[in-house]
Structure formats: structure tokens, C-alpha cells
């Protein structure tokens, strides 16, 4: 009895117990829906057969249909652009803001907190407000740009197929900044000031200190924030639903919104599952890259 107890409090069993608690919970709740979706992608699913597993097996038919859709390639590339640009700008702007607000000036810590607004506002509201800001006719952005003389006519941010995707990306960057900024701020605050002081005494410039001290020490944080950022962006749905509905004519459609359209608007549920499985494959790549990168983290 004592020995059993000791294994869990002290030995290798300790780590396993800690891990199994969380992993077990996740497997029960999240693995099941994941498997359910994967299975559905191989079946002919009808709106009314959702509750049972017993559906006709159609092999790769759903996959063939989805990959053969004319809109598949543009939607795929839209998604790549959406994720790439969103994460890049969210990270750089978030990091820049975290660095800026790390400095010592009155009200720095108060003002930093205000950036949480993007994370608190309900999705419905964010979508509606950005829709009004980006509206072609009565939108604030056009109004400001024209008043400042930066543009001649109105830019139809949401209905012009060549810019609609980028407009949605702008709204999404806005949404993601708080997440990046706050987490990177915590990471920055954990770096002791004397490390910088020592380097400064040695004559290192600010840029040099940033590259050789800050970045390496933030490695763990950065890796986590980037990989989670990619996964979150792949799930981002509200901005599409509120701003463009993937339009016009799929110009701003991305895999996650398309999956929803297939499953919940057209009731082509098997094909909707295929798209989500494809997204899972994408995330597998991201997750593998992240896990490998953790090997290089300083263990302290």
C-alpha cells in the first residue's frame, strides 16, 4: 500500500498519472467526435441518420466528389492565405505590442489590458461591427480613407472578389492580437531584467539583445502561440459568417466555412466531413512540426 502510493507520488508513475488524467478525459470527449467525423466521411450520410453509426459505406466516393469540385482548389488556396497571413500578422503585431507595452511609462499595464477587448467581444458583435466598418457605401474605413485623401472612390472591401478575402483577414488579425499579445507579454515578463543589464554592460545593442536573448528565451512561448494560432485560425468561422458568407462567389471561402456550408446548408454531410478530415490532415502536419520543435527548447 505504501509502496503503491510512493510510486505515484514520487516515481515515474507520478508523471503518468498526471498525464493520464488529462489525456483520458480528452480521449473520452474529443476522440470520439473526431473518429465519428472520420467515419462519416466514408459513408453516405443523411440528415436523419446522424444518430446511428449504421450508414451505407461508400468508400472514397465522398472524397472524389469533394476533390473534384471546381471550387476546391481556390478554396484551398484561400485557406492557405488566410492562415498564413493571419498568423504572421497576429504574431508580429502582437509581439511588437507586447514589447512596446513592456516599457516603462505611465499607464502601460492598464492600456495593455484594453487589448483584451478583441477576445471578449461576442463573435456576432465582432462580425457585425467589422461589417459596418468595411461596408462599401456607408463604411467608416472608406469614409476615413476618402476624407484623408488616400483613395479616390469607394473600395468595396467585402463585395469585390479581389479584396474580400483580405478584408476578412484584416478582421481576423484584429481578433487574434489579444491572444498573441498577452501570452507573449507573460513570456517577456518572465525574463529577468538582469540578463538584459548584463548584456547592455557588455555593449550589446537593443537589436542584438533582442535577437540573442529575448527570442531564444521566448522559444517555448513562441512555438506554443504559433501552433495554437494556426489551429485557432483554421477554426475561425464567425468572421466569415458575418462578413461575406464566403462570397462573393467563393472569393473569400475557406475550408472551414465550406465544410459548414456542405454539412449545415446543403445537408451534404458526408462531404462536409471530408473537408474537416482534410483540415485535420493539415493540423497533423502543424502538430508534428511543433512537437519536434519542443525538443530544442531549453529545459530550464
Amino acid at each position: 500500500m505504501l509502496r503503491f502510493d510512493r510510486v505515484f507520488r514520487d516515481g515515474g508513475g507520478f508523471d503518468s498519472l498526471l498525464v493520464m488524467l488529462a489525456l483520458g478525459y480528452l480521449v473520452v470527449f474529443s476522440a470520439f467526435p473526431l473518429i465519428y467525423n472520420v467515419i462519416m466521411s466514408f459513408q453516405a450520410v443523411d440528415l436523419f441518420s446522424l444518430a446511428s453509426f449504421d450508414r451505407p459505406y461508400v468508400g472514397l466516393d465522398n472524397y472524389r466528389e469533394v476533390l473534384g469540385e471546381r471550387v476546391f482548389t481556390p478554396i484551398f488556396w484561400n485557406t492557405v492565405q488566410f492562415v498564413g497571413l493571419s498568423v504572421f500578422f497576429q504574431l508580429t503585431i502582437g509581439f511588437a505590442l507586447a514589447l512596446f507595452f513592456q516599457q516603462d511609462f505611465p499607464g502601460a499595464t492598464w492600456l495593455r489590458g484594453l487589448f483584451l477587448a478583441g477576445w471578449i467581444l461576442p463573435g456576432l458583435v465582432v462580425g457585425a461591427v467589422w461589417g459596418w466598418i468595411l461596408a462599401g457605401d456607408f463604411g467608416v474605413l472608406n469614409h476615413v480613407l476618402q476624407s484623408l485623401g488616400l483613395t479616390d472612390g469607394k473600395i468595396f472591401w467585402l463585395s469585390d472578389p479581389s479584396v474580400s478575402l483580405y478584408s476578412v483577414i484584416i478582421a481576423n488579425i484584429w481578433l487574434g492580437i489579444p491572444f498573441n499579445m498577452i501570452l507573449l507579454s507573460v513570456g517577456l515578463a518572465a525574463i529577468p531584467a538582469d540578463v538584459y543589464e548584463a548584456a547592455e554592460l557588455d555593449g550589446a545593442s537593443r537589436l542584438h539583445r533582442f535577437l540573442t536573448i529575448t527570442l531564444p528565451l521566448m522559444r517555448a512561448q513562441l512555438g506554443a502561440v504559433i501552433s495554437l494560432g494556426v489551429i485557432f485560425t483554421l477554426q475561425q468561422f464567425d468572421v466569415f459568417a458575418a462578413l461575406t458568407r464566403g462570397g462573393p462567389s467563393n472569393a473569400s471561402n475557406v475550408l472551414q466555412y465550406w465544410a459548414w456550408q456542405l454539412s449545415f446548408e446543403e445537408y451534404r454531410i458526408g462531404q462536409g466531413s471530408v473537408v474537416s478530415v482534410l483540415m485535420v490532415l493539415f493540423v497533423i502536419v502543424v502538430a508534428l512540426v511543433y512537437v519536434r520543435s519542443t525538443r530544442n527548447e531549453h529545459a530550464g
Partner: protein
Amino acid sequence: MLAKNLWIRWVLLAVALVLVSFYLFPLYWMYVTALKSNTETFQNPPTFWPHDPQWRFAEVWVEYGLASFIKNSVIIAAGTVALVVLLGTGCAYALARVRSVWMDLVLFIVLMMQVLPSSLMITPIFVAYNQVGMMDWPRTGVVLAQAAKVLPLYIVLVRAAFTQIPKELEEAALVDGNSRMGAFLFIAVPLARNGILVTAILIFLQSLGEYVYARSLITDRALQPATVGLQFLTGPNASDWSGIMTYSAIYVTPILIVFVILQRRIVSGLTSGALK
């Protein structure tokens, strides 16, 4: 020298105010739209302050029963955070400390478990809940499902926080006769406190905004959270935009204030001295 420093600080403050005002413009637009009539929202050129402000805060609070909605939102979010912190902190610690192929695999699986958006997870969860009778405790059901959704996020982030703590401190504690459990609870967790608290804040705020699970699993209006209540202000044809923005303003403002105050204490924290 002193004067120069002081001057720089005020310049920085000015820049900060500009940055904040840029970022918060959509928030300002939300407040202004709450005060405008439904039609003025579509006015061209747009007005930055309503012609005839309508203060509908009291009306919206009473008519839509915001008190009950917000209470439920807080209950669900708090329950989620509690569950996630309980389950996830230990796992994050183990993943940070132990480097092995097994742990890599676990981290990978943890990440994969949050790959699907809630809209695709809800149907199997709904069916499963129905089978086991979970539908009789709707808010608990939402807490459980939402906790599973955000647990991977918590684990990954807190793990990153734990990796920043040098191992030597725990090793010293073990040499001093503490068990690993003790070292974990009394050394590691307090040191990673800031990372844990900030992540907990993010998860709390994220769970306040949870909509899909709450909508599908909670049918009794008295138990529904604010996000579901908000959605009801949109209709198939007509949407009361100024009402929606008013509702949102009532809901967002106190939360924003509370967390601005909270994050200030946590993010800037007191870690700098502890590592010595």
C-alpha cells in the same frame, strides 16, 4: 538626464494611446451603434456620434432578462476554468519535465484533440449525452464539453510556462527531502503562477463566449448563457442591431474592466525575483 527620461515616457504614453485607440475603434463603434437608431447605422456618410442618442440599456436589461443570462455565462465559464486547471496543470508539468518519445506522442495527441470546431463536435456529443441521460444537467454538460475543447490549449500554454522554470529549483527541493508531488505543488506551480493565471483568464473569457454547445444542449431559457440570449435578437428577416449592440455593451463592459485590472497584476507579476 531626469528630464529627458520623463519626456520619453510621455511620448511613449502618447504613442500607446494612439495604438490603443486604433485597436479599440471597433469597440467604440459598438458603443456608438448601441446609441443610434437602427437606420442611422446605415447612414452615409457614417456618423461618429448619434443624432439622437437612445439610451436603451435599462430596457434591454429588463426585456431580455440579462441578469439570468450573465449569471449562467459566469457559472459555465467558472466551471470550465476550474475543471481545466485541475486536470491540465499536472499534465502540462509532466509534459514539460519529461522528455521521451511517449511524451512527444502525448503532446501530439493533445494538440490533435482540439482540431475540430465545436459545430462538428456537437452532434456526436449530443447523441452521446442523450444516451447517458446527461441532458438533465445541461450546464454541467456544457462545462464538460467546453473543458474538453479548451484543455489542449491550456496544456500547451502552461507547459510552455513550466519549461521556463529551471529544473535546479525542483532538484534542490527533492534533495531537501520533498516528494515529487511536493516539488510540483510547492515549487513549480507557484513559479509558473503567472503563466497559469493568464492562461486561465484567456480560457475564462473564451468560455464566456461559448455558443455552439450552450445553444444545443441547454433548452431551458432560465439556464441559457448570454451568448445564446444574444443570438435571439437576430431574426430570420429583421435584426434589432441597436438592441444587439446595447446588450453586448452591457455584457462586455464589466468583463473588460475586471480583466484589465486583473491582468495588470498578473502579467507584470512578481516572478523576477524568485529565480534568484
